[in-house]
């Protein structure tokens, strides 16, 4: 896929991210890469794939993660302490033994600075080129709104990568339109206002956001606060094309660190929760199909 050029109009035509939604709803887990160490983190990400992940979001840790709640902040602190860096992140992606598309979730400064390290001066091109050759399919950048995204969008187009935007409960009107002109792969629907973190409830804001997006034909994946199979089922039954789960998985990693558990035990629990979430999403698909059939 790397180096293959796509024009702005048919961005979704060759997207392996968009393709991951074709056989029913997609389960999209997130982990911070390098949490708590390079090797353990690799075992954990591979466990997500075994548990049924359709896409995996890999967090490249940044020192000032302003969109994250305490769970993921702590994961990022552990990963940075463990020595994670953009260079190691790319090595990690290259070595990873999984067969699903990978999305890099990080903050703009790391993308922007990579060009300086590469000797090109600051700018997103060098990072995107490196990510493409390492095997990344797209990006989520929580501190980059559509208004500031054109340089990264252009670099993604150049290298055939997707750029995913987060639609918040407060995103509507012109802002939504501006974003939808620049998004590709899938839309990340933020389930409620606030930062990342597991919650037991599903917000009405989610349904309202899905309604606003109904006219756009990109897949819509809902994230922020999903922690279990029943929630996954409800969200998909309500119209989501995928679920994004971060903090509930990171909690398992954090518990593993706290209780000094062996890598295998933590990986098993990540795989088990993944199966539960994926099964929940599939039940959601069935409920949705039953609704359609009933009409």
């Amino acid at each position, binding site marked *: 896929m790397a180096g293959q050029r796509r024009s702005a109009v048919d961005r979704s035509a060759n997207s392996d991210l968009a393709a991951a939604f074709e056989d029913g709803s997609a389960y999209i887990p997130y982990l911070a890469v390098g949490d708590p160490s390079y090797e353990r983190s690799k075992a954990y990400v591979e466990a997500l794939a075994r548990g049924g992940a359709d896409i995996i979001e890999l967090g490249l840790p940044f020192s000032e993660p302003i969109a994250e709640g305490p769970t993921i902040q702590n994961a990022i602190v552990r990963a940075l302490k463990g020595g994670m860096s953009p260079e190691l992140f790319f090595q990690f992606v290259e070595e990873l033994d999984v067969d699903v598309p990978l999305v890099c979730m990080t903050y703009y400064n790391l993308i922007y600075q990579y060009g300086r390290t590469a000797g090109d001066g600051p700018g997103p091109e060098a990072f995107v080129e490196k990510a493409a050759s390492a095997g990344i399919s797209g990006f989520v950048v929580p*501190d980059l709104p559509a208004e500031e995204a054109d340089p990264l969008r252009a670099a993604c187009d150049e290298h055939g990568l997707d750029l995913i935007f987060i*639609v918040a409960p407060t995103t509507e009107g012109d802002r939504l339109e501006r974003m939808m002109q620049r998004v590709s792969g899938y839309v990340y629907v933020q389930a409620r206002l606030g930062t990342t973190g597991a919650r037991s409830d599903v917000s009405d804001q989610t349904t309202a956001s899905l309604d606003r997006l109904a006219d756009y034909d990109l897949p819509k994946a809902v994230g922020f606060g999903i922690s279990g199979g029943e929630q996954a089922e409800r969200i998909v039954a309500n119209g989501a094309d995928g679920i994004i789960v971060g903090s509930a998985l990171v909690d398992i990693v954090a518990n593993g660190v706290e209780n000094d558990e062996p890598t295998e035990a933590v990986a098993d629990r990540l795989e088990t929760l993944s199966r539960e979430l994926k099964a929940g999403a599939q039940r959601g698909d069935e409920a949705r199909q039953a609704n359609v059939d009933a009409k």
Partner: protein
Amino acid sequence: MSTDGKFGDYGGQYVPEALMPAIEELTEAYEQYVLENKDGFMDEFRDRLTDFGGRPTPLQRADRLSERYDLDIYLKREDLLHGGAHKLNNALGQVLLAKYMGKERIIAETGAGQHGTATAMAAAHLDMPCTIYMGERDINRQRPNVFRMKLNGSEVKPVTTGRGTLKEAISETMRDWATTVETTHYVIGSIVGPHPFPVMVRDFQSVISKEAREQTIEKTGSLPDSVIACAGGGSNTMGSFAKFVDDESVSLYAVEAGGSSLRVDEDTGVAPNSASLSTGNEGVLHGARTKLLQDTAGQIMESHSVSSGLDYAGVGPELAYLVDTDRVTPVTVDDDAALEGFHRLSQTEGIIPALETAHAFGYLEEHHEELSGTVVVNVSGRGDKDLETVIEETDARDVPNAPDMSMFSGGGM
């Protein structure tokens, strides 16, 4: 100034999507109330700055310093503003704006506690509930300021992530805002953050240079030759420079905290200074593209200064731009020279300055031979809040012009 909040390539709006509608709402409110004086907003702001804040602050000739350096030195006395620092200019403006916008709650971050205390005062004065985020380490360094905020009825929330200083407090306040954005206004404390904060805070603070410019002309018959102000995030700096930027004959010096060294330690992620204008490079932090202290990968460094109010890894995008275009000259003064400056102003002029302000006087001592004619120095705040730090830091090193410290050294009394 452009209307999209860009200063050359600096500035912009790098914030989570959930905050964008609030940023747009604030931009509109800034344009209407601040720029166009809708509903008499600016009139009320100026009246309250006079009656509650005590403006205008004096421009005072510093006779003994003038003699010492063979210059004509004038002090802009922002230390005499209510609260003891320039911070009220901005806090009062933003809390009042929040009221005009119909917001119900105020949040703010604070480093040294000066912005927190100013915001708490303004919130009490204007009857708004207020929560202040402050790094745990700063809370321990600035206990009297924490108590002042609580006295004014604000809630103070400790931030325990990272090193527990201003940078972490800003991140945490942005997280609160992302959750409560519909009812809450975030009173940012400096000319940093996403547009419109840098221009709005500058406009509220520019009363410093507006007055200083008129007062200098009135007292000396002409413009000053130089204006000197300390620079952390840069709000007193831009406040002191704003109305002089178009006066090309006036040299503008931004004095940054040189800390203990201008070298950075990539391995530990520590920059033992806060000199982002002098040594930083371009990046994106807390909503804006600006000059930052960062490692080669782009991780933000832990900054350092003896003065917690200057201890920040970024700086306002407008200052970064004015430095790149050679309008503002960035200079550094290390911890030692700042402490000497603190003691010198206390002894020669009877003014105990904030440690932030003391950096400007450190610069004067080290570089007075390069200056000429009339020099305006902004006394951004008074030093009462820093007395414990100054006792500790003076005791820990050999400060030639300090008073006898023996009665303050451990167990000496």
